[in-house]
């Protein structure tokens, strides 16, 4: 007779049940917080959403006194400054990661990795101060030098040499996200099996050529690292606020003062008294949230792709395992 077996997992003792309940509560709290943020932002932003509609994102005039609210300069500033940061930080971060995982002698590896990770722990306002006192003067003299060469006729380098502006913001952001790029891609490189490196070397590849194999193997993970770093650059507020010049200007010039979505919220929210001004700032917050979500969705998609591929790889190794 096939009597159903006694199923021990069905008997739950009281402590377990309590524990489970508490954990469930914690999980729900996180969900509730996220939802509340969204609802609250939406509520505050509603007058602006209703009044401006989608035009809000393409208007270029931002004049709180005349109640003209167009967010495009901020969207532009956020995208361009983070793009500059990515362009500078990705090669540097990948180089650091590659050095640490492939070339550095063992005694150097741990301390340098630790220092790189330490960079990520420096408060953003400190980066801002450093940017203001050290980087901005450097950028200013660079701008002056370019002005003298006559290159300033090129739109990219035109404008007055303020020092503060898009380029300074991009460079500060780049320094802030290098640790993310470096730390994540170092893990990616380390996950590449040694057999791949040896296979390349045994074919007569030099270190440089073997690196291509390592890089290829880890490519999806590296894309993930870039997206993660980009997300950080999009939302960074304090340091950018201190060096970007805080002007809602869309200019082709790298030297022009600009503004970002995060930094306009930080700098105007305290002084915003008109309800429409507050609503417009909240809508910028909403748009920033949307942009970040979009990017995380992209990252998630890429991670899924990596997982699917590594599953394929495991399946292939399953065939060959003894």
């Amino acid at each position, binding site marked *: 007779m096939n009597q159903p077996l006694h199923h021990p997992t069905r008997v739950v003792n009281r402590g377990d049940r309590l524990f489970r309940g508490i954990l469930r509560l914690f999980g729900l709290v996180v969900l509730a917080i996220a939802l509340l943020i969204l609802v609250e932002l939406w509520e505050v932003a509603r007058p602006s959403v209703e009044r401006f509609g989608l035009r809000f994102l393409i208007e270029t005039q931002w004049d709180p006194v005349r109640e003209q609210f167009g967010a495009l300069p901020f969207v532009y500033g956020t995208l361009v400054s983070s793009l500059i940061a990515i362009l500078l930080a990705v090669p540097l971060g990948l180089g650091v990661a590659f050095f640490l995982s492939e070339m550095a002698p063992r005694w150097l590896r741990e301390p340098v990795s630790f220092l790189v990770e330490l960079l990520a722990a420096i408060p953003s306002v400190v980066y801002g101060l450093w940017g203001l006192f050290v980087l901005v003067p450097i950028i200013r003299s660079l701008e002056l030098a370019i002005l003298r060469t006559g290159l300033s006729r090129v739109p990219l380098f035109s404008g007055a040499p303020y020092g503060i502006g898009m380029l300074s913001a991009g460079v500060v952001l780049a320094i802030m996200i290098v640790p993310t790029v470096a730390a994540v891609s170092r893990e990616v490189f380390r996950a590449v099996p040694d057999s791949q490196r*040896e296979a390349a070397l045994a074919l007569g590849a030099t270190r440089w050529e073997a690196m291509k194999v390592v890089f290829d193997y880890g490519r999806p993970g590296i894309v993930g690292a870039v997206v993660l770093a980009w997300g950080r650059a999009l939302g960074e507020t304090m340091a950018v606020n201190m060096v970007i010049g805080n002007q809602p200007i869309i200019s082709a010039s790298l030297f022009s003062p600009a503004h970002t979505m995060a930094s306009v919220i930080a700098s105007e929210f305290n002084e915003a008294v008109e309800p429409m001004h507050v609503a417009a700032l909240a809508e910028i917050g909403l748009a920033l949230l949307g942009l970040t979500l979009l990017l995380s969705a992209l990252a998630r998609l890429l991670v899924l792709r990596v997982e699917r591929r590594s599953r394929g790889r495991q399946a292939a190794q399953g065939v060959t395992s003894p």
Partner: protein
Amino acid sequence: MAVPIRVEHLNAAFGPFQALHDVTLTLPARQVTAIIGPSGCGKSTFVRCINRMHEETPGGRVWGQIYLGDEPVYGPDVDPVVIRRRVGMVFQRPTPFPTMSILENVVAGYTLLPGRPRDLESLAERSLRQAGLWDEVKDRLRDSPLNLSGGQQQRLCIARALAVEPEVILLDEPCSSLDPISTAKVEETIMELAQRYTVVLVTHNIQQATRVSQHTAFFLLGRLIEFGPTEQLFTNPANEQTEAYITGRFG
């Protein structure tokens, strides 16, 4: 052109641990030489010295000398990259490059390096034929190598090593992760290779050594114990330890 490999007083170490002690022997050209011995006897280290892969291991050191034909493998003006082009290697586990197609894998030795030959496709075909894999993959050259069986992957790695036209092929326990049928196919391939290359086969499988090799070297605890024609070594070993190993008393 296949060349004999002359090994003279070869020593190798990992940091303080010496893995090979004063090995001297000559591996003849156009033959399969099997390297046998229990785990940890230094047989893998020995072949990794021939293509200078041992020094890529952290702490790996080598002293003594090896000659490919008349040319030294070790020396201040010898480029290990050049040696590795002349001495191909196949590892214990198949190591296809997962992001490349089957075709790209075969010619990886060229695409990774500057100066590619004119006709990669016919080069790939020739190499795959030599490795005995052509008929099985000719219709799926653009597929991922991960869809191949383990034995096919291993023969793909052999083809990849052959594509750069080496003189010597080192096989480090190439069948240890394969099933018997795949093993038989790879062994067939190895015997074919011996017509054109100097083949060195590390194996922990004594039957395999008797099946495919003409010469056998027996290593124990980092020393070369006995080296001779395979038939003689297995039927009439000169050394007691060799006899103990091949009759299964240890290892």
